[in-house]
């Protein structure tokens, strides 16, 4: 009885040490206890004794737990004060040494990489050549980068849009405050809304006035960039980001009540659903046709015209919609956990 109840409650190190010293059975003195209890089968008295012993054991266990907690507390206190400094210093030194070592190795590597701006570097090979010389006739896009990411290597770009979608879903999991089943808001949501009203600017005249001028221009510029993705620099990602910046600006100036008139959670869900499924299915069609050696049957148009590049412009629009919705919903979720 002088032993503690079970070794599984002691500290791990002690347990391992004990195991080394006394073998496996030492860990299980509980079994022995139990068997010895079973062999002395005397009703009543032994039961009472057992109950007493149980109570004592439990108390002892509680105490051992409390002790352990105290021990941990002391350790924490030590860690917080002197230990933290010591460990911290060692850690800083190690991390710095590692970083310096890594930079050194990488610099050594860089010194042996192909020269910057060298026209004969290994990256200029038959792949680049085909993209540049035949890119326009094969994809119909004047902007070779757009043709490359949306036609030759479209699978990566599909993955990239999926990254955005899944990131938006993950942030929804993390930050969205759900309503109850009957649609009434929970306490947390009410608090978040009142917070938001408290900390955000209220109907600032100057801000609203300048936003009224700026937002249409920003949106227009974003749309221009998306629609000209196959003709000039830009495309779905940058254009979508610009549009979302315009929307966020509007939201900041006018608050959720006004912005909610044209952009709710449903808008987000439907828009990203439609654009992503359009994207995935369009690309699936073109992959399937390409892999099976069938003609895709999509006209490429005259290179340089706005209606050219086959699927590239619709895909850019889809990507732009996904990006702008995702970024806007990020912002809204950060501000008050929902739209």
């Amino acid at each position, binding site marked *: 009885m002088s032993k503690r109840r079970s070794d599984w409650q002691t500290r791990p190190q002690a347990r391992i040490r004990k195991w080394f010293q006394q073998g496996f059975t030492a860990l299980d003195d509980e079994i022995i206890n139990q068997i010895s209890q079973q062999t002395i089968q005397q009703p009543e008295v032994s039961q009472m004794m057992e109950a007493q012993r149980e109570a004592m054991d439990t108390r002892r266990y509680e105490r051992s737990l409390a002790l352990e907690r105290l021990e941990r507390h002391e350790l924490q206190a030590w860690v917080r004060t002197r230990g933290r400094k010591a460990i911290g210093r060692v850690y800083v030194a190690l991390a710095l040494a590692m*970083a310096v070592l890594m*930079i050194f190795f990488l610099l050594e*590597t860089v010194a042996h990489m*192909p020269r*910057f701006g060298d026209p004969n570097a290994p*990256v200029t090979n038959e792949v680049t050549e085909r993209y540049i010389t035949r890119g326009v006739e094969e994809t119909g896009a004047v902007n*070779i*980068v757009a043709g490359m990411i949306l036609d030759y290597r479209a699978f990566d770009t599909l993955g990239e849009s999926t*990254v955005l979608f899944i990131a938006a879903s993950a942030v929804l999991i993390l*930050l969205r405050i759900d309503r109850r089943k009957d649609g009434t808001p929970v306490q947390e949501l009410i608090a978040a809304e009142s917070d938001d009203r408290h900390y955000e600017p209220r109907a600032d005249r100057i801000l609203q006035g300048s936003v009224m001028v700026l937002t249409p221009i920003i949106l227009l510029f974003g749309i221009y960039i998306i629609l000209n993705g196959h003709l000039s620099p830009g495309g779905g990602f940058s254009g979508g980001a610009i549009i979302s910046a315009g929307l966020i600006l509007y939201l900041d100036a006018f608050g959720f009540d006004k912005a909610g008139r044209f952009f709710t959670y449903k808008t987000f869900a439907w828009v990203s659903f439609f654009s992503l499924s359009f994207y995935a299915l369009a690309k699936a069609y073109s992959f399937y046709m390409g892999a099976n050696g069938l003609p895709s049957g999509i006209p490429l148009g005259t290179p340089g015209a706005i209606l050219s590049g086959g699927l590239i412009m619709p895909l850019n629009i889809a990507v732009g919609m996904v990006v702008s919705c995702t970024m806007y919903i990020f912002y809204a979720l950060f501000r008050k956990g929902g739209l």
Partner: protein
Amino acid sequence: MQLLYENLEQTVAVILFGIGFTILLLQRNLIRKIIGLNIMDTAIYLFLASMGYISGRKAPIVVDGVTEVSAYINPIPAGLVLTGIVVSVSFTGILLALTVRLYRRYNTLDIDVIALLAKGEDA
């Protein structure tokens, strides 16, 4: 040194990578850690983008129907970096969301303190 100077872009990229890495390891503040991650990522993108540059050539947007290799720089790294930028902004969003949640729970941004507090919740 001469070699490093010729590859200055890549040299700077590698140094930035190291700085970002150090911020990631040493800063205990979560938001600074996230900035460190972003610096690390952009450093890699700079590295990748510098690979495609060829001196004296233009951006890969076909002008006047000129489709000769000697006219344009390599379009591939640009496409890859484009993908990478979007990936890293998604990560930033998720990590910041995590930060907000952690702060709401523990009222601190220091990751070590947060870990200690989380352990203390058990006892």
